[in-house]
């Protein structure tokens, strides 16, 4: 069980690191996020701490979701397929893409659109109350953490409109939590199946 847990955690971690790298690249390209210039020499050396943080967070989230599901005793049954998970990831990347590349008239519009997209993501791929609650909670925590980071001058945003950060950041966090939770649940299901098949073999 523990090895399985470790494998799942590792997979989630690597997925998180990968997505963080790719999505951060999108943001840096558009000069949304400014890292100190002496740090930035190439994209992979810039802010080395971001991907591991995201990876750890996504591993935690991905493990937390099935755990909470089993605690609450309401297993997630909605669209439990890899294709659906892939769709979810694609939409998540799309939301990030939109936040970085689409030119909106103002920040409020951007934030509202992204919020609607995030809720739509939840509705399309999750639809569980626990997922929603956890998503909101983690998004708030992550936003707070980002605020603190920016406040301490670790990095900054080009045009902050919500204290120190961009107001769409919570939406992105929420969508990310939903996505990682989806992946985590699917992995957990896979593991269940392996265990169950093992038991039934004999």
């Amino acid at each position, binding site marked *: *069980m523990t*090895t*399985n*847990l470790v*494998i799942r955690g590792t997979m989630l971690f690597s997925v998180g690191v*990968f997505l963080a*790298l*790719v*999505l951060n*690249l*999108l943001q*840096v*390209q558009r000069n949304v996020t400014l890292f100190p*210039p002496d740090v*930035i020499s190439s*994209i992979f050396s810039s802010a080395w701490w971001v991907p591991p943080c995201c990876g750890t967070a996504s591993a935690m989230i991905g493990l937390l979701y*099935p*755990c909470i599901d*089993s*605690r609450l*005793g309401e*297993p997630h*049954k909605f669209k439990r*397929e*890899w*294709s659906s*998970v*892939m*769709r979810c*990831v*694609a*939409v998540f*990347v*799309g939301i990030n*893409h*939109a936040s970085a*590349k*689409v*030119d*909106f*008239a103002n920040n409020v*519009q951007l934030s509202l*659109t992204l919020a*609607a997209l995030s809720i*739509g993501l939840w509705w399309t791929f999750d639809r569980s109350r626990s997922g929603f609650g956890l998503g909101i909670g983690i998004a708030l925590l992550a936003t707070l953490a980002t605020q603190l980071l920016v406040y301490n001058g670790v990095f900054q945003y080009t045009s902050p409109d919500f204290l120190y950060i961009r107001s769409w950041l919570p939406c992105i966090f929420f969508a990310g939590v939903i996505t990682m939770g989806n992946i985590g649940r699917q992995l*957990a*299901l*896979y*593991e*269940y*199946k*392996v*265990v*169950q*098949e*093992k*038991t*039934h*073999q*004999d």
Partner: protein
Amino acid sequence: DGRQLTPPPRMTLRERLREKISAAFYHHGLLCASYPVPIILFTSASILTCCYPLLRLPLPGTGPVEFTTGVRDYTVPSHEPQGDLGERPDWYRGPPVAYIQQVLVKAAVSPWDSSLVPVDVFRSPLGRVFSLLEEIRNHVHSDSTGVRSLEALCLQVTDLLPGLRRMQSVLPEHGCLLVSPGNYWQNQRELFDSDPDPLKTIQKHEPKGLHTSATLRDLLFGVPGKHTGVSHYNRKRVVTYTITVVLVSYDTRFLGSLRSRLKQLHPSANCSLRDDHMVHVHFKEEIGIAELIPLVTTYIILFAYIYFSTRKIDMVKSKWGLALAAVVTVLSSLLMSVGLCTLFGLTPTLNGGEIFPYLVVVIGLENVLVLTKSVVSTPVDLEVKLRIAQGLSNESWSIMKNMATELCIILIGYFTLVPAIQEFCLFAVVGLVSDFFLQMFFFTTVLSIDIRRMELADLNRRLPAEAGLPPPKPGPLRPREAPPPPRPSPHTITLQTPAFRNLRLPKRLRVVYFLARTRLAQRIIMVGTVIWIGILVYTDPAGLRTYLAAQVSEQSPLGDSGGGGLPPHLGVAPVFHAGDPTSTLSVLPAPEPTPLPENQSQGHHGSAGAGPRPQVPPAVPQITWGAEDEEGWRRLSFRHWPSLFSYYNITLAKRYISILPVIPVTLHLSPQEAIETRHPQDTRHPPPPIPKVSADLQTDLTLYKVAALGLAAGVLLVLLLFCLYRVLCPRNYGQNGVAHGRRRRGDLPCDDYGYSPPVSEISPLLLRGHSMDIECLASDGMLLASCCLAGQIRVWDAQTGDCLTVIPNHGLRRSSSSGCWEQRDGWDSVGGATEPECLGSDCREHSFSGDGLSEDEGDLLRRRSVPARPTLFTDQPDLTPLIDTNFTCQPPSHLATPPRGGFDFGGLVERAYLEHESPSPSTYPSPSSAASSSPPSAAHLQRRRSLGDAPTLPAQDRASTAGTQATADWDSSVWAMELRGNLIAAGRSSGKLELWDAVEGSLRCSNEDGVSGITALAFLNNRIVAARLNGSLDFFTVEINKPLGLLQYRGAPGRGSMPPSPCYSSEDVISCQLTRSVQCAHQKPITVLRAAAGRVVTGSQDHTVRVYRLEDSCCLFTLQGHSGGITAIYIDQTMVLASGGQDGAICLWDVLTGSRVSHVYGHRGDVTSLVCTTSCVISSGLDDLICIWDRSTGIKLYSIQQEVGCGASLGVISESLLVTGGQGCVSFWDLNFGDLLQTVYLGQSSDGQGVRQLLVLDNAAIVCDFGSELSLVYVPSVLEKLD
């Protein structure tokens, strides 16, 4: 037949709409399947038509586009599009970002002197750049229109980008953008002269590592690095570089004067470069590697999505074909969308490559898969047309609903009023609609073709094998995927489908097999390499080309000249006028340079036909001008200009620059000058001993580096994969069966999160009292009625487990009084006979019968049926009085029965059994062995057919009823029992229906209208339905009347019936009237009877299921589809009807329409039990396998292997909790994951009897039989979930 639709009283709008859509889809499906070829042709034509406008769109790509105009009549193009201007591209509007004027300098020290050191090759030529720069900078053209200088015309640049600090010393800032090699030394001659090693200075700025695109060296020299000749190993001894001037406006006169001035100062002999064309280069939006990464990621996700989606296509002839069709559907719908949008004048401004994956994801492949699944799950025996139509209409509603939802979402997106999103939404809408069109026409047709092919293949395979056989039965064609295993003929035994096979394998093995089968790893690596090379070539074609060209050119001429072969070029300059270079060097302050006629002053006539001088090394470096110099910038990377401009934060994306014809400058320097300009350290460089080798060495080193890097990466990859393999596949793989056995007692399971269900709360409550094995169980939630083989009915409180009533077997009484013990039930008689025998003085028979019981039950049975009997029989007379005397003492527990203790034989037998049981509890025979060894009689054979298939009747019933049926009619056993309210309905083998009061234990009424044994009963509301052995179906109505008078009412007079209890015990008079009898409900015995939701469903040996309406006993449907007798039926309040048959097939039916929803083969042998939940169907079979199926898709989720003989006992407590019986235990399973939650042991001995019947009560308790005991198990943890 009896198929008739019952129209709902009133249909809502939604239902009507749904029906209409369904009908429309049905007709459409028929159409598509009827005319596949014309429809596919039509669809292809429409796809092509819609895609036609795409031809006008430019091909995607990021390479620059060129357009050449003449210099003479050049005017800055206007912004407005000017009608028809021939081939003028539409980007050629407005002024360019900049005009590029390059001055191409070729310089050589000539004649070459042996006293010169290698540094001299480039030091003095490079040194001349400063004077040239000075010349260009100070060039002023003045005429009537005014004075123009470079300062006024050039592109003024400001700061470099902040990230380029290290280039600040090299690139110009705050001034004209004018780059030349002189920038390395800040355009100061002094710095150059004092530089001990210019090469090192140049190298210092080169980026580390492999860099194929524009480097600083390329930028400053303006020619590819290989062509500059600035190295120690320059064999040609010609140095080439450019001075690049970036102009912001075009002034013909100034440029003309500059050109002529430079030409005059440094005339180039034999230079025939054309100078009448300027090239405009348009740059596309650039996709850097950084932008490529997200793009590639989205595509990877897209492909993963497509892969996972199409993987689900199953049960078709050609999986790959259908997957391809699905992908084609989606892709061409996207193309159609773009094409239509272009047709209506919407030019896409979005980057198509970027939004494409998102569009695919939005449109999705779901509908296609749903369609496939739906069509595949239709009955296989239907015609293909009808299958397609039915499959389509089944899914029509969900498809339409999904599409409407998606359109709504997209519409909402459209009203965000963000242009980019609006455009995306527009594309998505058109894409969705065209996707729907294609699904309906293209994919459906392809599907119909595929299914037809499948059936043809099936037919072909069957025909030859069956040719010699007698005419096959007209049964349905079996689908290829699910051959019924018990069939003996070899031709039907085919391989299982992958889906079936894979279920047996663990997922890890399947992954490995998949990798091995498809050689995925190799292919991925191959494809990756190809893509990498492609990207490399695509990103920097010039760089690679130049590299290759350099390799080639270095190889051939150098090798030749080194070997003393042919001189490198044809145009060897044989004559050199030493005086001329010096004269040209005298920079005269000529105000108006007059252009010198070409080929006049210089002596380097390229006599092309001059004979080569083989033996002489090229002492005189010759400068040639060829066509390749004309547009030297072409040899540069196409990112050269964008990167130069990007340093100053000027983007060239979607803009163009104009490149003016180069100005050639030829410099010849004397050796004297070269020596003069030497730096003191220059001479320390030893001449390269073997230059060629070292040069090769240099290039080789790079190659080696690359190779080493690749090797290291490969090794790393292998190690990584190995580690991954080790992590994923533990060493003890394959032996894990030992570790994961079925959990024994005390070994509590817990799931991954350490969560185990509360254990202590589940404890079985044993209900003792029956003397023999439990035969029938019935419950209505509050009460629980059980009937044992002895014919005794007991009623228990389902909450507390108290025994409320005992209804003894009246048949027993009669038999004992008549003394004819043969008519009694077999086991009863043996038990009853042996026990008193041992109690009595004569124990002669004790040893005999005791042996028989303890060692082999079958032995006893045989003995009983054949010659041994006479000896037993002789004992009979003196046994009878013994019984009578013994039984007068009545146990006090039977107070509820009328006080006729002498006749209450059942209670006595029970007591006797209890006594008998205590010394040797295991003497009771196992029912299965008893059944198998029971004597075959004609009656038994007839009975066996129905009983063996009815899961509600345990197998032991055969043995017990075998004798009964053959002999008397008034001494019958209970075959079926139902409990409602406080009424027990008991159906007897004699065909009599009795109604008992459960609380008082009194017979309220009985009905003897039928003579054939009642095999199954259903009790719903006030109606009782009885199925009989002869296939008839009787509907009874129970009427409750107030009594007319005391003691007047008697039940139907029957010989076998017990006299009814006095009526004063109850106020009501209950009568049971036969309302209707369907004589020939089935051709063969009815095996299963279920009633729910106002419907009565019967299953019979004749392979059909019939649905009756309860109120008027009208037959609604006859459902055909099984190829064996029906053995299990499930129906519940939500009108879900499932049936299982002897063929191992499970069918799901739509009760409203009588159509078959899905049809799967799941078991080897009979299906013994069926339960449905809202999401899945659970079936068990004679193969002791419990299979869990997805109800909507009909896919087997997983299966659970049961213990032998316990397959039929299963129940569903809640949506997610399954309970199954085992050997002396019940197990709880999590339905969602197939996880064993807990095993509860019922008795003390773990290997006791198997649980064969299992009943789930409403209060989340389960009741199961456990030999002669009942076990009541509460599952308290489920109680909360039920609320």
